């Protein structure tokens, strides 16, 4: 059976490679050139960096939904954490791998990473960077923090986590639909204030993206010390 499976996989893989190769070399210049359109519309978008303009102006709807995807994944992580520790205990705050070297490295890394995150967020308006990268750096900070065996502040894990997690999406959604009240389309930022709206959304998004990525990491259920896997030892 495994043999058949591998043969099938190899056949399909080869077929896809061949088809893609044919497709890649048979291509002509397209009629539509969105890069040019982005350049033309950039002054009206309120941001100077084209990728940010695409993410939060021209295709902001995709970004809104993408944050929803991240939120859904975090919700499921929380749900399955609950199932694992039904008493609402703190989700395994520390790994048992605490070492002094790692600890001091983390102490050193922390300010650097925070500064990097803030810089990335701020830079996103006119050069590469933005909420995603900044959020990822913040989340990475949390991950390093945890891997080093430190505890995350308790309130961050319980009381504030929910708020941080939801804030970005909630604010994005409120901003997006606010203009409906003024008979403007969904996600149409006020023409004069687009820049500020985008900066505000990105700032809150950074925190929420970090919170969501961190939830996905920290809420992964840990090995059950007396779990189901054990009974097999004594059949």
């Amino acid at each position, binding site marked *: 059976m495994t043999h058949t499976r591998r043969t099938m996989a190899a056949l399909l893989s080869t077929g896809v490679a061949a088809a893609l190769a044919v497709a890649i070399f048979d291509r002509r210049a397209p009629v539509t050139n969105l890069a040019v359109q982005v350049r033309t519309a950039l002054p009206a978008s309120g941001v100077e960096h084209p990728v940010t303009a695409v993410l939060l102006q021209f295709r902001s709807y995709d970004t809104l939904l993408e944050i929803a995807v991240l939120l859904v994944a975090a919700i499921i992580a929380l749900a399955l954490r609950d199932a694992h520790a039904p008493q609402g205990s703190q989700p395994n705050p520390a790994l048992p791998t605490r070492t002094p070297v790692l600890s001091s490295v983390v102490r050193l890394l922390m300010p650097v990473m925070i500064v990097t995150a803030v810089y990335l967020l701020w830079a996103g308006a006119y050069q*590469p960077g933005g909420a995603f990268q900044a959020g990822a750096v913040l*989340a990475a900070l949390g991950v390093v923090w945890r891997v080093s065996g430190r505890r995350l502040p308790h309130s961050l894990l319980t009381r504030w986590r929910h708020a941080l997690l939801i804030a970005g999406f909630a604010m994005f959604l409120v901003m997006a639909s606010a203009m409906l009240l003024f008979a403007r389309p969904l996600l149409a930022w006020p023409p004069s204030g687009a820049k500020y709206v985008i900066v505000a959304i990105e700032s809150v998004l950074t925190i929420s993206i970090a919170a969501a990525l961190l939830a996905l990491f920290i809420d992964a259920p840990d090995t059950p010390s007396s779990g189901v896997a054990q009974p097999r030892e004594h059949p």
Partner: protein
Amino acid sequence: MRHMLTLVFDMLLGAGMLVAAFGALWSRDLFRAVVLFVVFGLLVAIAWIRLQAPDVALAEAAIGAGLTGALLLDAIGHLRRGAREAGASTANVPSADACE
């Protein structure tokens, strides 16, 4: 001359990505596979710079290689510990498979 150098660099980068990916997909040791995956992610980040996509390079390095790698490594540690607790002598799927 300079053009030749970048050409060679791109060739090597592409080949390196393929090799790292192959190792991540097929090496016998799971831990090694994940480490190669992180290496692969970093190579892809360099490729994004070559493709004039610095935003994507940043995201790939931070999320694609960094976070995903950390997640996978954490999961491997978890699977290994679980398999050890289950006992290697029971000779059922988990121990053989998780540490493979």
